[in-house]
């Protein structure tokens, strides 16, 4: 058994009147990939947006329950949400590089958190992050070109480089490949394999093959409830719940 990095306890989330998550409890292991699958609108995105408190931005969203990272309650009153997000990076469904140069995109996080003291430190961080995101070789001659000018797959890797530039513990990925073609998807999946040696990764995905390929544990969400969470092999070969069985065999969803 690996170390437990994140632990959610009886998590309930409401958007106004509508309840989006019902009593979700699960844990995620350190330096492993955990996949969350389920049909659209099942609450899996809502769940990972609780892990870095991105739901704070939405006024009508109310979160009840407890989430602990390394044993610290992230919804505690004295928790600084900016510092939390520095430790818990996020990659979104659609690549969202800032309309700045490639360099500035990656340097954004280190700059706002004051991580680099000198310009040379900053350059080192940018280069290393781009290397880790397997993007450096493709862009090393045009670091000062617009990040928005890259292809979709490159943009998504740029966003990954941006996320790891502040050296987080955890990276949340919300359907990171849904806007990408199969080749770009394969590159991102390969990258996840490398990244999990250093980071704890939580990925939301619609593709069950992807979940099977990249993750060690998988959770299945349905209608706001966590139906089942287990080792990925178990979920895909021998699920204990009929709904999971139906979903992975393609009978609904």
């Amino acid at each position, binding site marked *: 058994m690996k170390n437990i990095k994140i632990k959610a306890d009886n998590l309930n989330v409401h958007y106004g009147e509508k309840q989006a998550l019902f009593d979700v409890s699960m844990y995620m292991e350190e330096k492993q990939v955990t996949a969350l699958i389920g049909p659209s609108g099942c609450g899996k995105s809502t769940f990972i947006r609780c892990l870095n408190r991105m739901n704070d931005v939405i006024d009508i969203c109310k979160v009840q329950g407890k989430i602990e990272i390394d044993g610290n309650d992230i919804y505690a009153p004295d928790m600084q949400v900016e510092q939390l997000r520095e430790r818990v990076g996020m990659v979104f469904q659609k690549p969202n590089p800032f309309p700045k140069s490639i360099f500035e995109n990656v340097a954004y996080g280190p700059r706002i958190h004051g991580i680099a003291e000198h310009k040379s430190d900053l350059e080192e961080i940018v280069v290393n992050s781009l290397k880790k995101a397997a993007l450096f070789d493709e862009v090393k001659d045009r670091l000062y070109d*617009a990040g928005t000018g890259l292809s979709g797959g490159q943009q998504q890797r740029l966003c990954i480089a941006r996320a790891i530039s502040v050296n987080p513990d955890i990276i949340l990925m919300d359907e990171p490949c849904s806007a990408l073609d199969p080749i770009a998807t394969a590159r991102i999946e390969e990258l996840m394999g490398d990244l999990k040696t250093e980071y704890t990764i939580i990925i939301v995905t619609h593709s069950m093959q992807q979940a099977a390929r990249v993750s060690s544990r998988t959770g299945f969400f349905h209608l706001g409830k966590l139906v089942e969470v287990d080792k990925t092999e178990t979920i895909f070969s021998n699920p204990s719940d009929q709904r999971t069985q139906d979903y992975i065999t393609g009978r609904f969803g």
Partner: protein
Amino acid sequence: MGFILISLIILIGITSYFLGNFRAKNLRTSNQKNLKSLSHYYGYYVALWAVVPALLILLMITSFKSFFIEQYVLSDFIALGSYTETELSLLFTQIENTALGIKLFDENTILIDGAVNKLNYINKTIENLTYVTVLGFSGLLVLYSVFNINHKLNSRKIVEKFLLVLYFTCSLVAIMTTVGIIFSLLYETLRFFSQVPITDFLFGLNWSPQRVFVREAGDLDTRDLANAFGAVPLFAGTFLIALIAMCVSVPVGLLTAIYMSEYASPKVRDWAKPIIEILAGIPTVVYGFFAALTVAPLVRDIGQGAGLTVSSESALAAGFVMGIMIIPFISSLSDDVIKSVPQSLREGSYAMGATKRETIVKVLLPAALPGIVGSFLLAVSRAIGETMIVVMAAGLNAKLTANPLDAATTITTQIVVILIGDQEFDSPKTQSAFALGLTLFVVTLALNFIALQVVKKYTERYD
């Protein structure tokens, strides 16, 4: 006469719509053949034939008849050969007045009485002729088009074609007006520059066209012209006041936009935004007396309290009020631009652990910058074109100064001053207004053009 005739034409149009519609339905049932369009299109088809040519003929008759009438009525006087063009047209006015029963002069009574009779006769005849021609034409074309309906005729296409022509004509009206205005500006400006060298106008430091006015046109001396039309003080005044206005409106407008788009709750936004936009709807004259009666004295009192000499009409007062007036231009446009920055960029920044302020300053404003700059430029061109506030609050004194506490004047104000009151149309003074107008037009056009280019060039950066 026009009203009755047009009502008649419209009546014929409505009747012929039903006629065409009826005929098409009839054909459909009796011939068992399919027509190419729905019945009501045949109605439109006949109605168009009934109305459009008739209106065109009416338009032609009305535009040519006055010339024809004048020639006919004045033929006796023209035959005498002793009248000039101007005298003839005055004479015609006199005849018209006499016909209406207004009698001002007693000369030439016999000839004029004859002409009045002629005028009454020709007016009556032309009126009758117009009725006959227009209505006759309309009726004939109704007959023609009703019998033209057959299964091969695609009236739907014809109606579409007609609408195309109609749309085109309407847009042509706007375009031709613009072109016409530009050319009349250009023409008068060129006449002005034939008397006053363009370099004197653009680089001269002294603006005092009154000097030309006080003399008779015949006495004009080149020395008077040489030093009277230097527009630099006006350019400087315009620039100074616009600058003051921008100093007020840019920070206030931009911060308002940021508050409205990023901080205000939807509730606050719903009532605050319309109120701010009302600022743009207040008539400039109201701003003008607000500036003249409230702000200018306030500026003067404060200035004097601080030991400065402030004239009672100051560029500062006018510029300040103008700045208030253009706040909504900046805040409203910038607000829209900032709001249209995709939510994904905000989330991307928050997810990096940025605060709201950092997100606004480092991501949103740079992303929205082109639109914001565009709104500034539009506001500048509005400020440059503004007249009333300056007329009322900044004075008319064309002094070359950079002191905002002094009276100043702008291009638009001087145009107003020049064209108020009676004067000969071809004096250089009057024409200088056109030269100023053209200058203003070119500057505003250039600013608008640049603004649109800036906005267009950078807007597709994120999608």
